[in-house]
């Protein structure tokens, strides 16, 4: 059917294998540190010190999860990017190392770690070393609050949940630009310096639409807490923030009542959307839905600029500046820059998923599933049987938590779809010029984001999203 089905199959297989590898190892690490080790410690000796150690182990779980996740994920994303770009440009991509090129990036990582670490003459050695760390650490460890939303507020990760989660993440993610400027300055190289300064200009310009589009969502959900924002989007894609941030909740409930043959369907509709001012209601709903969709794409655009992805990769424009701010870096410092870049891409994608795309919630409405599979009894039976069979794992060993499992599965699907979209954009769009970049940021995106914000404020006053 498809001419290229062999390559597409290889790409899918590669993705599945690597995803299993990543999340299997993260899961294993979390289980060992968060469940197995504390249990063993408590069983070994029942005194206070051991109890304290067990608790420390549990508190360390999110950190361990991140530390295991980052390097493997970066390897996987580099491979997906290369293979994906190869797909889009009618090439084959890396397919030599390991079975079908699966280990290409692992080999690259090993090579980078063993390369000589050079500090160029005239460079400021102290700042030169500090720059990758400042680039790497804040945004990645600042994103820890996301873990609570990703895992469906699992007990082990609940401590990462902050009441002001998204605020903290945004604040932390604006620090890395200091690292880029620092690296560019300390390199004692014209190209690096220009790259660093461009990055500063770009980050400052694009942070405003990025934050404004997130603020819009926070306003709609009346919360800065990522877990709460995620939990408000349960129950199908109509409740997602990208479709009005709750404006379609009533529609969702109405359809639910209608399909189930409930008698109070019209009452529900009336409660959500009062009919005495229906023209205003329709306008408000339409405004909200359009605004939030625009906000989503604005967020994606600004996030691309924040993490220096391709239409906005001026800080490391290969055709103008040799490699931008990381020209002079080699070995492990370059590896850290590389790692941080790809992890940042993952983080902005997961923020987009949590804020706009319903976090770890099932995109298909529950009533639709019930309706479609009303007569198919064997599927719920099989699921029940599997749950029964796995119940010792769930209840006694705590190996699997079904809520966390499904939440993570949907997060993976949505987040990596966005990552893939970023690769697709990289394969499509050419790079901006610096004046176009500034023009687009200041004259287009910022007014648009302000406009969206105001529309949302007024529209939200008209319809009641909190019944």
């Amino acid at each position, binding site marked *: 059917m*498809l*001419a*290229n089905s062999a*390559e*597409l199959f290889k790409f899918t297989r590669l993705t599945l294998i690597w995803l299993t590898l990543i999340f299997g190892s993260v899961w294993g690490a979390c289980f060992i540190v968060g469940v197995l080790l504390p249990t063993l410690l408590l069983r070994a000796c029942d005194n206070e010190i051991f109890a304290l150690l067990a608790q420390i182990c549990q508190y360390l779980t999110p950190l361990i999860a991140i530390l295991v996740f980052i390097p493997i994920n970066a390897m996987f994303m580099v491979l997906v990017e290369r293979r994906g770009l*190869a*797909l*889009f*440009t*009618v*090439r*084959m991509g890396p397919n030599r190392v390991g079975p079908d090129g699966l280990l290409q990036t692992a080999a690259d990582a090993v090579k980078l770690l063993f390369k000589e670490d050079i500090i160029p003459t005239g460079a400021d050695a102290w700042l030169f070393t500090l720059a990758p760390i400042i680039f790497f650490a804040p945004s990645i460890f600042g994103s820890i609050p996301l873990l609570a939303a990703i895992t469906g507020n699992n007990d082990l990760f609940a401590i990462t949940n902050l009441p002001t989660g998204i605020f903290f993440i945004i604040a932390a993610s604006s620090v890395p630009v200091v690292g880029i400027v620092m690296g560019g300055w300390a390199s004692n190289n014209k190209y690096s310096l220009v790259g660093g300064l461009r990055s500063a200009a770009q980050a400052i310009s694009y942070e405003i639409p990025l934050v404004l589009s997130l603020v819009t969502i926070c306003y709609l959900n009346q919360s800065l807490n990522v877990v709460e924002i995620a939990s408000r989007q349960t129950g199908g894609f109509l409740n997602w923030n990208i479709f009005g941030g709750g404006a379609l909740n009533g529609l969702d409930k109405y359809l639910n009542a209608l399909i189930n043959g409930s008698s109070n369907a019209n009452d529900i509709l009336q409660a959500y959307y009062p009919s005495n001012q229906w023209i205003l209601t329709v306008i408000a709903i339409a405004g909200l839905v359009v605004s939030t969709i625009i906000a989503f794409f604005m967020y994606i655009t600004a996030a691309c600029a924040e993490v220096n992805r391709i239409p906005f990769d001026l800080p490391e424009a290969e055709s103008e500046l040799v490699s931008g701010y990381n020209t002079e870096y080699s070995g492990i410092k370059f590896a850290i820059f590389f790692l941080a870049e790809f992890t940042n891409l993952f983080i902005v994608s997961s923020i987009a998923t949590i804020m706009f795309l319903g976090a770890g919630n099932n995109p298909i409405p529950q009533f639709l599933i019930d309706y479609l599979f009303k007569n198919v009894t064997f599927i719920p039976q099989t699921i029940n049987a599997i749950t029964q069979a796995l119940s010792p794992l769930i209840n006694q060993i705590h190996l699997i938590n079904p809520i966390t499992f499904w939440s993570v599965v949907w997060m993976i699907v949505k987040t990596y779809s966005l990552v893939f979209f970023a690769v*697709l*954009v990289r*394969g*499509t*769009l050419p790079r901006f010029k610096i004046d176009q970049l500034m023009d687009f940021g200041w004259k*287009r995106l910022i007014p648009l984001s302000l406009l969206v914000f105001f529309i949302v404020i007024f529209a939200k006053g008209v319809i009641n999203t909190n019944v």
Partner: protein
Amino acid sequence: MSNLLTRAKDSIYQVLRGLKTVAVHSLRIPTTKEYPDTMPPLPPHFRGRLALNVNPETNEHLCISCRQCERVCPDKCIEITAHKSPETNKLELIDFKIDHGLCMFCGLCTEVCPTDCIINTNDFEMADYSREALVYDIRKLTLTQGESSHYFAAKEIALPKPKPAKPVASAPIAPSIAKPVETKTEAKPVETKTEAKPAETKTETKPAETKTEAKPAETDTDTKSTDNESK
């Protein structure tokens, strides 16, 4: 304002068009040739590594030590060692060296070769660790019987006639221009050099000997076995 909206609409349309193009391209079969795994289809006249043919039927070496390739080579990368056989008074090939590090694969040597001995093969993978290893001697240059017959078929070269017949084909032209009388008279006594074109052989160190072109059918049939080293 309307201008702004039009431009926004237009640019979004263009971006979507680009995305569509990329999506369509991702369904095409890759154009990559996985070279070491699958060899590129080379035409038979591809000018690759130089090699020496043997007669595909009789396995006798086709080189007659005429040194035309050595002379025509612009890089001077061919070096032929031959000596005169005392019994038959004919040139006998001892060694044939080609420095592929110098060769520029112009193919002139293959064009002048009167016996279609030296040819360009389709082999181009000659990378080595030293320059000395790029100098191929006769052992490395001479093809096997099977390879020779393959190249004779692929390049559509007429199969060489058995040794006696070959000089006959060139003899009527060459000696007739030069000295038909001498060849007839001094055929056997004087040393015979199996040269195809007398005009060029005159430039050699011994003009007196080379003038005496002697390629009658009788002499060659006698010396056939001794003249050729078949390796």
